[in-house]
């Protein structure tokens, strides 16, 4: 299978500090990739580089065969990137349904395609049908997470980036989230998913492949089991404190 995303020798430095150093990997269609590592390992920076919030210091990123390294975030989104943030970003004063509509209506994806039926279906999927006319600020944190996911999914992304999706979720909610991720990829709703997580259990359930980051570089890659037995990884953070 051809790679959906190719990341080549990507680096980012802030002042003198190398947050991400010489990172290369591919994201393949049909895969859920987990990105793990301790705080400060560079996961969030890598994600920010991917979706375009910050500029690369070095390297390149190809998406669907095209070089997107210089594209601003909203252009990347138009090409099919979808990003769900860790600190929930919904529209507090707007209604739940209005939040979703903003995702569904997005220009460039054919605004005619945003039918009320689509929105209804999404409300069902994220379990917020009964609250569709409530203001988003009234939802619990977990519900807002779901709302954000629903919003992003309505933009029909090819690549879905999730930053700590289970933070603030109960175990059953996290299980639902894992189920959703697998289904999205299995049903080809989304072509690939990248999940940044601390919740190793969730990673195990959801990902085909795991990348471990430490101090700005990828120190291991493989299935969760392979990675957990990797010596470098053990040295880095699973066994010992750094």
């Amino acid at each position: 299978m051809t790679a959906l995303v190719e990341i080549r020798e990507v680096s980012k430095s802030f002042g003198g500090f190398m947050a991400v150093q010489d990172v290369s990997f591919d994201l393949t269609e049909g895969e859920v990739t987990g990105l793990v590592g301790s705080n400060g390992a560079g996961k969030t920076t890598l994600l920010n580089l991917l979706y375009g919030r910050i500029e690369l210091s070095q390297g390149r990123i190809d998406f669907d065969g095209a070089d997107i390294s210089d594209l601003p975030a909203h252009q990347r989104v138009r090409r099919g990137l979808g990003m769900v943030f860790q600190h929930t970003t919904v529209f507090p004063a707007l209604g739940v349904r209005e939040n979703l509509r903003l995702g569904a209506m997005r220009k460039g994806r054919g605004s005619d395609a945003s039918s009320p039926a689509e929105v209804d279906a999404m409300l069902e999927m994220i379990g917020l049908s009964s609250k569709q006319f409530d203001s988003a600020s009234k939802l619990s944190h977990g519900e807002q997470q779901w709302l954000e996911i629903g919003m992003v999914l309505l933009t029909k992304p090819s690549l879905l980036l999730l930053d700590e999706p289970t933070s603030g979720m109960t175990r059953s909610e996290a299980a639902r989230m894992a189920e959703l991720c697998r289904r999205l990829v299995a049903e080809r709703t989304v072509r690939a998913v990248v999940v940044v997580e601390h919740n190793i259990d969730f990673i195990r359930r959801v990902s085909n492949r795991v990348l471990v980051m430490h101090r700005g570089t990828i120190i291991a890659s493989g299935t969760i089991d392979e990675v957990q037995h990797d010596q470098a990884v053990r040295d880095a953070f699973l066994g010992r404190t750094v």
Partner: protein
Amino acid sequence: MLAARSRAASISRSKRVRYAEVIIGVVLLALPFIASDVFLIDRFGRYFTWAIFAISVDLIWGFGGVLTFGHAAFFGASGYLVAIFTERAGWFLPLPLWPAIGLAVLCVALFAFLLSTLAFRGPYPMRGVELAVITLAVAYLLEQYARAGGQVTGGQNGILFSERFELFGLDLHRGRGFYWLAGIALVIVYVLVRIFVSRRIGLVVRGIRENEDRVDLLGYDVPSIKIEVFALSAAMAAVGGAFFYVHEGIITPAAVGVAASTQVLLWVALGGRGTLLGPIVGTVVLQHLTATLSGTMLDTWIFVIGALLILVVMVFPAGVLGFLDRGPAR
């Protein structure tokens, strides 16, 4: 069953707006027939032109979340342009009144378009406080230019208008005539803006107010949308300004200054940001109170108004008609 409860909780947003529109509409329609003092009616006409200005600020600030300290620059610049187009000679000037107003509004919109393009798309995209300060600077600079403008702007003393409002042979320049003219202009502006915000683009604009980054990251071209709204808002302000200053008969540098810009924020905030109707009510009530109290309470009116403002903010923090924007979203 759960959905039914959510629906029954209180009147939906759009219904509230309808009710409010009807009530306010009836009051304003009845006014010229109830009041016998022609001067008072004429005054309300002026309030309407200010209300148009307030709506323009509500559009960019209440709906768009973009705070501006210099919107009076558009209100006043329009007045100046109409004055220059109708009073000065040379090239294609002078113009008759209505084409002059049209051209002035167009020029102001163009200027706002260029300014906001620079602000939102330029090398240093501006937000929040930075943008507010830039608008302040623009207003200040325009005021300085007006003062120093010599032959063109009439300098310190400004320009006197000789044109009067006339349509189909009717004199609409004072009294009841002006009340209806300004009133109709207000209704048109209100309807246009109301349509704008209830369409899809309106939802996106409100989204930008709530969380600009998120809108950007859903793939919308946020700078484009902000520029569009800013230019539209400036055009509305220009309409209000044109009507106001022709009616006044004179325009002076203070018109485009900072003081006028900040006053309008008060009307909008007190009336209720993002409600369109709130700013209308806020403008009319505040201006009328100021006008009447500064005649009857010469020494204390300023304190009374101040106390009233504080009281209103305490009881209605979202503005007197702020409830129109809250509640279930339909």
